[in-house]
């Protein structure tokens, strides 16, 4: 099992969700986050006070998938989230030790 953690542009969320749904991935968790990588922030001015805002709004998608689907999911996700500009985000992949469905104690891939 792999955990996919993708940090993407907020406006790409709908496209990514649709794309993942179309290949049959239907479980995910979304968080509104702030952060930055190489993308520069922007300047905000309030009554003459200037603030450099480096942490920009992003959306973090987390999901756990079977090893077999790993490549397909990554391909679909990057294609849907990509605009080709700095700030498109990153994907991190982790190995998952176990998964448990709370409702009925299913374990491992059966719990996904």
């Amino acid at each position: 099992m792999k955990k996919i953690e993708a940090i993407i542009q907020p406006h790409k969320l709908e496209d990514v969700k649709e794309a993942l749904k179309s290949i049959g991935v239907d479980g995910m968790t979304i968080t509104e986050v702030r952060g930055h990588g190489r993308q520069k922030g922007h300047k905000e001015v309030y009554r003459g006070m200037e603030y450099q805002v480096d942490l920009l709004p992003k959306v973090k998608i987390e999901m756990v998938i079977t090893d077999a689907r790993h490549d397909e999911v990554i391909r679909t996700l990057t294609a849907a989230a990509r605009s080709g500009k700095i700030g498109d985000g990153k994907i991190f992949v982790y190995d998952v030790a176990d998964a448990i469905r709370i409702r009925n104690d299913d374990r491992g891939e059966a719990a996904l």
Partner: protein
Amino acid sequence: MGNSSVPIRAARVCALSLLAAAAAFAQSIPPDLEKRLADLDKATKSAQMSGDNAWMLTSAALVLMMTGPGLALFYGGLVRRKNVLSTMMHSFILMAVVTILWAVVGYSIAFAEGTPIFGDLRYAFLRGVGAAPNADYGATIPQQTYMIYQLMFAIITPALISGAFAERMKFSAMMLLTALWSLVIYFPMAHMVWGKGGLFNASLGGKIPAFDFAGGTVVHITSGVSALICALYLGKRLGYPHESMRPHNLVLSTVGACLLWVGWFGFNAGSAVNAGSLATSAFVATHFGAAAAALGWMFAEWLHSGKPSMLGAISGCVAGLVAITPASGFVQPFPAILIGAAAGVVCFLMVTAVKKKFNYDDALDAFGVHGIGGTLGAILTGVFATKEINDVYSGKPMGWIDGNFGQVLNQLAAVAVSWVLAIVGTWIILKICDATVGVRAAEQDEVEGLDLSMHGEEGYTLEA
């Protein structure tokens, strides 16, 4: 003779019968006619009183709406999220505190006859303030209506100051400060400008008649200048200016500013104390001033910083409303536009360039907007006041535009007294508060946020 006697006799008979009829009429109708005239007179008066009273009660409600939710939202949105409730509380609790003070002595100090500086205690505990009109202030409304209308001004004025000490003052100190401030500064200042026999009262026997239709000196200079003193006395917020102190929610502030704009019609047009054409004139001037100032600030900011901001537009609108306040019942629509536009640009420069240069932390710019906008408006009232709108001097010229330059000097005198009273009074009150309860929140409390440290609650919770 024979020929002429017939018509003469006929005329005589005719005249006699007319006289007889008139006599009969005079005997039988008079009591009825007199009663009907008296009834008609009563009905007319009652209709006018109903009309005026309806507008004045509406105005009173509009002015209260300026404090809560108007100012509470406007200021609440400008602070950081950890201080949103404490900031809204400053406005809200004054709706209660000042009301009690007003009932006990406030109205009497402000509006009873007495010395030129303050009124005597004849209306203490609202004795004798009932359904009967007080002709000096409003002949067609119950004095009780006038009392409750003026109370709403006494509420918002100290609430305006809270913009300067937001995010760092102890709640107990804020309560004590605003209570003393109302007693020592607001009530006497209201008496001087609007009370019978007050020093600056232009229509009720003041020695230095100054024009202040709805509170440029009384409300905005006193609160704005006192705000500066509070900001200087308290010192800067921890982390100012290098830490981010961005407004946490400009949506709240925008809703608040719009409520202020609407409520201001009660503030200014209501100050006519009747529902006549002067109220209309003040309503129009108010609206035009606000519009011009929103544009003035926005364009100044657009040129200066490259972008026209929502915060800039609403700040400008408030600055214009402040500046037009003293002038609203004395000026034509186009001078109102000039006053508004000037206020928008001048106040923008104050809160950006001047504040930065002198490096004080007037957190929400109560001084830059109310102190400076109020001063500008009070002086420009002396320039643009005209007898065409409000003939206070019975046909003699009013402002500079009418040919009476002396009025500008009178306005300056009223401005100077307001500044001095606000500076000295507020400094002494701050010293008293500091010696008793202490004015500044403990460092840990300020870092944690006043919502949690002073009030034990949060504006926004994750779980709920």
